């Protein structure tokens, strides 16, 4: 993915809440612990975050409530001003934008979905979806047409004239999604979009979301407190604690090599074989006398999906190839079996 363009880039971003955060932040050393800052009356919502998000990527920011994930995404959209550091969106320094430029940026490039939907209660579905278009001054017919398209896309056709309070939670969030997509944004922020929904609907909405993502292929920043959801959706996961990113990596790597104890707590309950892909554990054979399989496995398959092969075909390594048949590397059978059934000495 190195050839892709960076869409959002941030370096050493801090966000403190309190009386006079920027003066205070400059007066303390960078490694001041969270509790010390809290004792001084400040909440560290975002701490020393550096991150690059590339075009077309879906990054999931995961953390428990109060870990600063929602604050971070609001900094990306400049709904909140950061205390220290820099954020660039499409190469432009967000902090330097004027109010008008910022509004322009939101009107053209950004869409956001909220946990509790954030719909306007006095407007019906159609007018809610058309709202961003109305804000940027598009004509009535044009915006109606586009809004109807979006409503169709999220499967709410026939309910254009319903008011938000007449819809179920899942339907309301579909309106929220349609609204955020109406201006065809390049960057799509989703702040715990499915957390307020009950588990069955949540699953359904996740599938729906994956379908949309496949169609639209946007750069996505997705916030969740649900690790399963993160693993299900993410290209990369950033795990946050006390405002800082503990680890930012692919789901495979997070599960296989948790960077900190905190991260490994999340991975404990996870069935690793369902998460890890063959391409996530690539290795080169070390010695000459290894037995390499005479067939290749697909890198896109999870270890779980390869279980039958791993058990039946007794080789030391299997070649791994991508969908075009190009060789990516090799999968170590012993390690893969460990992922599947646990360490050998257990």
């Amino acid at each position, binding site marked *: 993915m190195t050839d892709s363009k960076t869409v959002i880039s941030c370096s050493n971003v801090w966000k403190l809440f309190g009386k006079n955060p920027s003066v205070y932040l400059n007066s303390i050393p960078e490694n001041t612990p969270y509790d010390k800052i809290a004792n001084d009356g400040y909440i560290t919502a975002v701490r020393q975050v550096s991150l690059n998000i590339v075009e077309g990527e879906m990054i999931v920011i995961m953390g428990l409530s109060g870990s600063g994930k929602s604050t971070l995404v609001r900094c990306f959209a400049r709904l909140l001003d950061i205390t220290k550091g820099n954020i660039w969106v499409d190469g432009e320094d967000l902090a330097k934008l004027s109010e*008008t430029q910022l509004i322009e940026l939101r009107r053209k490039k950004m869409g956001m979905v909220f946990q509790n939907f*954030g719909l306007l209660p006095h407007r019906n579905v159609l007018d809610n979806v058309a709202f*961003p278009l109305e*804000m940027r001054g598009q004509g009535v017919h044009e915006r109606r047409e586009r809004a109807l398209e979006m409503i169709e896309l999220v499967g709410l056709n026939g309910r254009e*004239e319903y008011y938000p309070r007449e819809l179920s939670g899942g339907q309301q969030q579909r309106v929220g999604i349609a609204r955020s997509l109406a201006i065809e944004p390049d960057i799509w922020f989703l702040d715990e979009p499915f957390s307020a929904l009950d588990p069955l609907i949540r699953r359904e909405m996740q599938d729906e979301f994956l379908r949309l993502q496949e169609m639209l292929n946007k750069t996505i920043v997705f916030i969740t407190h649900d690790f399963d959801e993160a693993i299900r959706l993410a290209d990369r996961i950033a795990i946050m604690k006390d405002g800082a990113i503990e680890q930012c990596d692919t789901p495979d790597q997070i599960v296989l090599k948790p960077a900190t104890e905190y991260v490994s707590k999340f991975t404990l309950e996870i069935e690793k074989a369902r998460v890890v892909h063959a391409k996530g554990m690539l290795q080169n054979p070390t010695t000459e006398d290894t037995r390499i399989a005479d067939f290749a496995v697909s890198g896109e398959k999870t270890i779980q999906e390869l279980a039958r092969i791993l058990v039946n075909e007794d080789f030391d390594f299997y070649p791994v190839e991508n969908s075009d048949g190009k060789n990516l590397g090799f999968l170590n059978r012993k390690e893969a079996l460990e992922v599947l059934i646990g360490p050998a000495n257990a």
Partner: protein
Amino acid sequence: MLENPIKSDSLLGLSNIIWAYVFLALSLVLVISKGVLPEGIHRPPSFLVFPFADWINAFFVFIRDDLGLIHVSRAVSSGVEWLLDVTANLLYGKHRWPRIGPIPWSAIAATAFIIGYGLGGIRLSLISGGTFVWIALMGQWKWAMETLSVIIVATPIAVLIGLIFGTFAWRSRAFERILNPILNLAQTMPHFAYMIPVVVFIGVGPKAGAIVTVIFAVPPMIRMTLLGLRSVSPEVIEGGKMSGSSGWQLLRFVRIPTARTEILIGVNQVIMQCLAMVVLASFIGMPGLGQKLLQLLQSLKIGKSVEIGISIVLIAITLDRCTQAWAKREPVHFPKGSSILVRNKFLFVWLVLFVLFVILGQFIPILDQVKRNQAFSISAPIEVGVDWLVITLDPITQWIRWFLITWVLIPLRNFYLWVPFTAILALLACFGFKIGGLRSALICTTFFTLIAMTGWWDRTMITVYTVTVAVIIAAIIGFPLGMFASFGERSSKTVLLICDTLQTFPSFIYLIPVVMLFGVNDVAVIGAVVLFAAVPLIRYTIEGLRNVDPQIIEASQMSGANKFQTLFKARLPLAIPTIMVGVNQSVMFSLFMVIIAAFIGTQDLGQEMQRALSFTDVGKGLVLGIIVSFIGLMVDHLIMTWSYSRKQILGIQ
């Protein structure tokens, strides 16, 4: 109006409670040694009394004549007068532009019927439509329309001003900080205090009535606008921002529409305040139902007063219920493909009915105007009934009057007047320290020291005495009634509904039954105040008792408590902070009522206020108004501080 209680501060190393006892002792010493101490301790000495009224008058003369504000106010009032003339022409045919009117009463009643139906179904439509039919049939059409025309003109102006100020206060904390004490003062000043400056600048008559109504109705609108804008969910605002709204778009399309309910409740309050004020504005020559009621009450024509009273009450209920229904209305979609006729069915039905009645009015005169000699009257049977009631109840009312005057009112009044003012200040300091510490003690004593400095100490004491007596009697009636009603779900709801309805009545209405029963004297004043003050007491008692966490009730029931044990051991202790809020409101209502009741004969601040009104003495009127406001604000501070800290201790809210 709620301040945080300050508990931890201590003065000279002594705790608040010790200071409270010190001041209590001081107060007692001052009372006991009254005979020995110099005169300056009993009554505010003359060097303490400042001519505030003269200063205010000088100031008003300065801004009126030297700054030329009189021209501004004339211009404003002529604008208002023009609007009033238009509505007057349409509603009751005053000979002014556009010279169309009067619209037939039947067409207006049909309009009211449709509005009621659209907002609240058949029941509300019967109330709203019925109100206008009643008014027409009783031959009160012109007076009622005079009253309504002022409300129609004043409400939008007050709402607009309130919205603008509320929005500014929401945008700027500094502005809010300046505005807040002014609003506190404005909302505790009696109605009459507003009238005097208006008479100075505008004169008397309908336009003065309309302008004083606007001024009086603005504060609650500001408060509700502020509350509404604050309560919009942050996600909705972020949603608006991410949709690319600019600051103005955010306010216009997101914040204000989302705050709709609060803003409309503000509109409801504005309308109810307008009605209360427009009835009272009869004192400054505002024609209409209020003026008729005033004249009839003064000449003790009870039957006719009751008729007018019913009309005012019906108008109050109609306006209140319709605006409440409007505020609570949720948007509903129409089925897909509904035609324009279905979507706007109320508008079309109204148009058809309106045109129909306008045309019918041309041919059937009774549908156009009900002439005085065609009007019904129920005053004769009422008169008979009231006479019978008064004669039957006479022994009781006589006895109540005798008992109250000889054993309660006169001794208490003499006592209040006898107590040295320094002792009262010390007692207030004691309360202040006990309830909220040094800050509260300072607030209370400052308010009353300022009152002493105005030179109206004795009059103030009479007002305070009337309010004390009335609130105590109201509590004796209200608490048991509230407790009793709170036992059942149905009875609670019924009594709450009655209280809500009673609270919408303009205060003036409460004078009718007491004048009817007791005549024009001190007891009637107390009676009116008691009636008015008991309503919030009952209401908050029920609400306090009913809103106790059901788990606590279940726990006490499972501990084997019977109905009364549950009430006294579980419900009541938890409900008391809420009940005290009721007491607070009851005191505020009493203060308003005491001043209004002045015209049936009191010797307190209200009587002086009436005099100031008839001599258009702005300085005196404002000083008296501010005194009343200070009493109110002090009581409010003490009770709300207590209630707040009590809730903190109990861990509720």
